[in-house]
């Protein structure tokens, strides 16, 4: 879960890293804006708080020389959209003068299976392109130790006071990364001011969603409960699918993404859903959606999802495809799909392009499908053959 810049800066400050003293202004609060303008130090940096990178290039960051300019920038930014994200809050800070900018980051390297520290002398907005970064693995089993960062920074050519100061900042950042179960803690840029101070001008913190349970304090402090793990906007149908999924704890059957096609898909599990979606497209089919079912979903859940998919007027038929299952019961999925179609007053034999789920309880499932004349395929038919059948409308056995 990505944190807002101002939340990240709160964590940096708590960790002892210097950040500009900012004020947060919310949309719809004229009093906020007025007091911000009154309290601001000019020139000021005016920074929209949205969960996306590239704010500078997208016009989400501005500078103000006086209170009038600040007010007009606040008016422009609050409620606007930056890269598809609505601006609800703006951070106003004194603009920091600096001589140099650096990049500091701690994240996980999945190939190395380790935490890594990354440093570059070329901080700023194009750091990804700038290259010339140095990296070091940071063991987590051992207590944090500053020398690892000192070595890394020295290898990048830092010396003297800058080396010592930067080592301190990096060590604190690593402590924050570890203490809060971050998967990314990045300061870009960290600047060196003319007075020789190191100040974090921007920060990007991502928390591990799977570790939030041990950070109740943070969840409370920032109101993280219910914040979307990924910031993608959901369509009404996708939200409805999520509701169906969370209304019943049995199985997973709701992660839906809509596409502009005519073939509804009930597919799973994780890998097989990707395989089936590709195969449908490969054979010239037009998927109406991606979704992943698995973990033995209940009849009710499958039934509701089936009805939801067929509620879209352009969805002509649905294909039900999973890998050979051992946990999910074939008969329960078959009952759910057939029941959903019957409840809509439609004919399962017409609406189901193919049902291909072999495995646990398949005899019972196939018997039900035969009863309704639904085309189905067993384990001798591969996922892509089943997809081809669905697209061709040829079906399998009935």
């Amino acid at each position, binding site marked *: 879960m990505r944190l807002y810049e101002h939340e990240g800066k709160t964590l940096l400050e708590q960790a002892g890293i210097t950040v500009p003293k900012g004020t947060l202004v919310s949309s719809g609060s004229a009093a906020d804006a007025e007091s911000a303008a009154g309290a601001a130090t000019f020139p000021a940096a005016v920074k929209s708080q949205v969960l996306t990178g590239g704010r500078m290039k997208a016009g989400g960051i501005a500078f103000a020389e006086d209170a009038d300019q600040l007010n007009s920038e606040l008016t422009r930014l609050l409620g606007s959209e930056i890269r598809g994200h609505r601006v609800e809050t703006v951070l106003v800070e004194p603009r920091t003068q600096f001589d140099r900018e650096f990049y500091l980051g701690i994240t*996980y390297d999945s190939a190395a299976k*380790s935490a890594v520290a990354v440093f570059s002398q070329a901080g700023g907005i194009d750091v990804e392109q700038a290259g010339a970064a140095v990296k070091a693995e940071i063991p987590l089993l051992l207590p944090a130790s500053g020398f690892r960062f000192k070595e890394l920074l020295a290898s990048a050519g830092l010396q003297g006071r800058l080396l010592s100061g930067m080592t301190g900042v990096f060590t604190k950042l690593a402590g924050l990364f570890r203490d809060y179960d971050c998967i990314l803690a990045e300061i870009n840029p960290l600047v060196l001011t003319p007075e020789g101070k190191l100040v974090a001008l921007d920060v990007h913190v991502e928390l591990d969603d*799977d570790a939030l349970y041990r950070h109740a304090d943070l969840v409370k402090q920032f109101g993280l409960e219910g914040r979307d793990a990924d910031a993608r906007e959901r369509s009404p149908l996708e939200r409805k699918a999520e509701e169906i999924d969370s209304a019943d704890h049995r199985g997973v059957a709701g992660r839906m993404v809509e596409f502009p096609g005519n073939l509804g898909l009930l597919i*799973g599990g*994780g890998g*097989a859903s*990707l395989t089936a979606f590709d195969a449908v497209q490969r054979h010239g089919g037009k998927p109406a959606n991606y979704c992943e079912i698995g973990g033995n979903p209940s009849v009710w859940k499958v039934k509701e999802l089936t009805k939801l998919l067929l509620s879209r007027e352009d969805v002509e038929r649905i294909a039900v495809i999973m890998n*050979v299952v051992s946990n999910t019961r074939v008969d329960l999925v078959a009952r759910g799909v057939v029941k959903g179609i019957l409840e809509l007053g439609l004919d399962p034999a017409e609406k189901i392009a193919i049902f291909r789920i072999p495995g646990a309880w398949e005899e019972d499932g196939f018997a039900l499908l035969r009863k309704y004349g639904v085309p189905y395929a067993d384990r001798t038919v591969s996922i892509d053959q089943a997809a081809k059948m669905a697209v061709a409308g040829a079906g399998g056995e009935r």
Partner: protein
Amino acid sequence: MAILVDKDTSIIVQGITGREAASFTKDSLDYGARIVGGVTPGKGGQEVFGLPVTDTVRELTERFRVDATIISVPPPFVKDAAFEAIENGIRLLLVVTERVPRRDVVEIVELCRLRGARMIGPNSLGVISPGKSRLGMVGGPAEDVRKSYVPGNVGVMSRSGGMTTEIANLLTVNGLGQSTCVSVGGDPIVGSQFADLIDVFEADPETHALVLFTEPGGAMESALAARLRERPSRLPLFIFIAGKFVDQMRGVRFGHAATLVQSEADTTEAKARILSEAGVTVVEELSALPGLVKEALNG
């Protein structure tokens, strides 16, 4: 001698009294796995399917030789369970639990390195050497396992648990048996990646070809390509890469936790290119896989 798990591999189950663990323990015993006992703190002295349940791993390692453990405990307890196993001398850990905090996974990996242990998972359905034994729950109940998996000479590694069985089944219905099949786990960081396990398959005289299943996201494929550039494999290698459509959908996660395209290197296209350059046959259509494997085995 099968790799990783064989007929005489002596196994314990941590979290054995859990619903899922009890169920796969029974299925595995039916399949012939040599499970000798299980651990659930606070439930020592009970029995599960005639197996002793203890409070500590040590009580079992003192009584039995233990080669492997299956860890099926809730996410907050995985790290401690893994440390307990490693510190009691167990050298193969299978973690089936999903949603384990990333920091805990990395700490387990670090302790494995210090002690010479190997972790498979987290979020792995398991490892199976068909006809011999199984570690975990891949394939389900014994009778279902026998339908999908038969003994033979093709190794399988997959980032998807379900597709491990699907690919084995595809090989089986086309007359190709399997040596050992590994569900490596669908999480961003797993203990054993393709590049870690390829050595084990190469050292196995029973493995004559290796089939991989992968998805967008992660760096497992580039690590494998690097390994192959440095040291080509003696085995014919095949990979099926699912999720081509995800290439166009940056930032949206599909299926597994690691299945997310954030940069060019995460795409199926980039993975196909680097693996193909490293000598791996990239299989475009799953149905074509058995034919390609047969060709390589007979040619």
